[in-house]
């Protein structure tokens, strides 16, 4: 065997961020004084020294071709001396020091199809997962639903008219890469049929004790099938979480009946109210590719009812807490079902144990 030419490099970690900071940031690091959103999609940070940095925020579909990244690089060269950054919500920000370049940069981005916005009291990019593009447990496509929802909510991306910011997140299965469970609106892919076991391949592919212990409800049991060790699923005990499927390739859960659920009222920031989990609004909507009309309509309805009724600065969850959940279901006309009532480990914590609630309006 030929000697390797170079020593293999490992465990170096990422390059230092200091290599990529524009001079204005190096100079004013830790010395920023205040910021303003001067128009939708444009932040101005002012430092103690009086320096001003303009950040122009554009949407990306998260999934990006290398040629698109090269396009962003070229735009950064043209307007920002080559400096840009990405946000935690898959937007790209162009870091401009010359105010005169802000408008031309926006024009260029819009022309190339990457709209500018997503700041302040807006709906910004939807954080999302891989979906049918790349994941084995996806109950729905991620990028496709996100595209359709954002096409419809687009005016809210380009403006700042909402009572507060509204954060939407998407995960295509309960693994929730990107933990969507604390979002104003969360879209979550769900499986609704129990897993199917391939008894032929299981003994060779899976560790049976691991598979059994993977199930949170004890629905996976050891079994002997045709004289060979395997597992069986107690269907009544299954809540379709995919844990067994994650640890055992011989268990199949994906099914054309998979769909989506909608959750509302979560937040992570501490402003005014402590962080909150999102709560169930709609238990199931079937997959309707390519444009998912029911999901789009449902999300738009929730956004519009919120926009109309919430007070200034009130996030979705704060608004619902003020008016009460019965009113939320009444205003959105979403049916309340048995699925909305928790029946898992800490279920009782969400039962109302007082007469402290608003009686609904008298109807017939």
């Amino acid at each position: 065997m030929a000697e390797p030419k170079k020593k293999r490099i490992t465990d170096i970690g990422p390059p230092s961020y200091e290599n990529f900071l524009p001079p204005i940031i190096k100079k004013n690091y830790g010395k920023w004084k205040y910021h303003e959103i001067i128009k939708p999609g444009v932040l101005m940070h002012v430092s103690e020294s009086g320096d001003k940095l303009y950040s122009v925020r554009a949407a990306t579909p998260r999934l990006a071709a290398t040629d698109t990244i090269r396009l962003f690089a070229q735009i950064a060269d043209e307007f920002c001396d080559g400096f840009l950054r990405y946000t935690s919500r898959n937007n790209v920000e162009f870091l401009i020091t010359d105010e005169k370049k802000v408008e031309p940069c926006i024009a260029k981005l819009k022309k190339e199809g990457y709209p500018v916005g997503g700041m302040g009291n807006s709906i910004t990019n939807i954080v999302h997962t891989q979906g049918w593009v790349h994941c084995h447990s996806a109950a729905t496509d991620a990028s496709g639903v996100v595209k359709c929802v954002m096409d419809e909510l687009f005016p809210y991306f380009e403006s700042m008219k909402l009572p507060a910011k509204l954060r939407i997140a998407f995960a295509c299965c309960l693994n929730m890469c990107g933990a969507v469970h604390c979002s104003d609106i969360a879209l979550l892919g769900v499986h609704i049929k129990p897993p199917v076991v391939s008894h032929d391949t299981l003994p060779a592919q899976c560790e049976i004790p691991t598979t059994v212990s993977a199930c949170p409800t004890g629905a996976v049991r050891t079994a002997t099938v045709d004289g060979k060790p395997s597992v069986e699923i107690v269907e009544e005990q299954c809540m379709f979480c995919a844990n067994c499927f994650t640890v055992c390739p011989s268990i199949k859960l994906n099914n054309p009946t998979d769909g989506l659920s909608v959750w509302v009222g979560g937040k992570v920031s501490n402003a005014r109210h402590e962080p909150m989990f999102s709560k169930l609004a709609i238990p199931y909507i079937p997959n309707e590719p390519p444009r998912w009309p029911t999901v789009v309509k449902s999300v738009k309805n929730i956004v519009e009812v919120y926009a109309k009724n919430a007070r200034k600065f009130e996030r979705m969850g704060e608004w619902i807490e003020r008016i009460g959940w019965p009113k939320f279901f009444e205003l959105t006309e979403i049916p309340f079902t048995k699925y909305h009532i928790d029946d898992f480990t800490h279920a009782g914590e969400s039962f109302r144990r007082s007469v402290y609630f608003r009686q609904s309006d008298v109807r017939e």
Partner: protein
Amino acid sequence: MAAKLRETPLIDELLKGPWPSFVKEIKKCAQNEKNERGSARSNDLLGVLERSYKETIGHWKHGGIVGVMGYGGGVIGRYNDLPEEFPNVAHFHTIRVNQPSGWFYTSDILRKLCDIWDKHGSGITNMHGSTGDIVFLGCATDDLEPTFADLTALGFDLGGSGSAVRTPSCCCGMARCEWACYDTMALTDDLTRTFQDELHRPAFPYKFKFKMSGCPNDCVASIARADMSIIGTWRDDIQIDQKAVADYASKLNLENDVISRCPTKCMSWDGKKLSIDNSNCVKCMHCINAMPKALAPGKDRGATILLGSKAPIIGGALLSSVIVPFLKIEPPYEDIKELAEAIWDLWAEHGKNRERVGEFIQRIGMGNFLEQIGLEPRPEMVINPRSNPYIFYDQDQE
């Protein structure tokens, strides 16, 4: 010449509308003449996706063990279940590339990363993955080592996967935010470097994530998404510029928009002067967010450390809970590192397979946990003391 694009009438519907289209991005890759092998992969990906749209089901299979030599993570194996029809995506693995802290780049470094990915892979990326990594989507098994060699030569390394430290990430902090109460990017960079072995060689019961947010606005959702959430805060008085407050008084309704929205009602405004009873301020950030020119966090800054948040799998979703109410965050960060290591030692020894730290604490009890890692119980850690009398009194007391 790139091959003819596959016919994809269903997903072509996603080329329409004002929001940027991921289908357009995949098609760009499928038509990239500089990258013949990669474009064939992207073209097959279009075919697989069209098929999923037709059948409303995914076509990806579990990954086996794939990776680069000496690492136990950083690559997620992915195989297609229709390899005859779509041979170019038969194996189509994900490479996680550890991002620089704060996701700042120069055009030059981005082009070099693109060159590497066009040379070896599909040309499809995620900027960025959920944990924060640069994600290269669609690498064949044989191309993993060469991609890795080119990445490390450029100064990049792989991120975490599996039961390991996952790639730490942070908000832009002091680089571009006046509210940062500590240097999130420096801490993230330092922890990532310190824990390279824990990141690349999974040895824990399950994953462990660090997320650093510079203030309680928590822009990286650290409280919901990190096993260790390090959230900036302060101990002294909110800085007030009374003149700027007066300017806001003409734009905002100070009483309705700010004073009455304070969760502890610790502010007052007499028409001329804003007063804050700082001893009752819970650092929620609302007043500062509403009047960024007039108010700022105090000067005695640091962070609160919280532990244990996670998505539902396996035992249900959790938010992180307070473990260190206040800590000054200063290099070389020995206290944070020692705390993390103490937690890992305990959890690695007693945690069950696929049990996150948050679930582990609930199983063994927070009191026990604190004792084992050597922290004192503090009232800030709970909303209220227990109301049930089922107390496990120690048996070895005098």
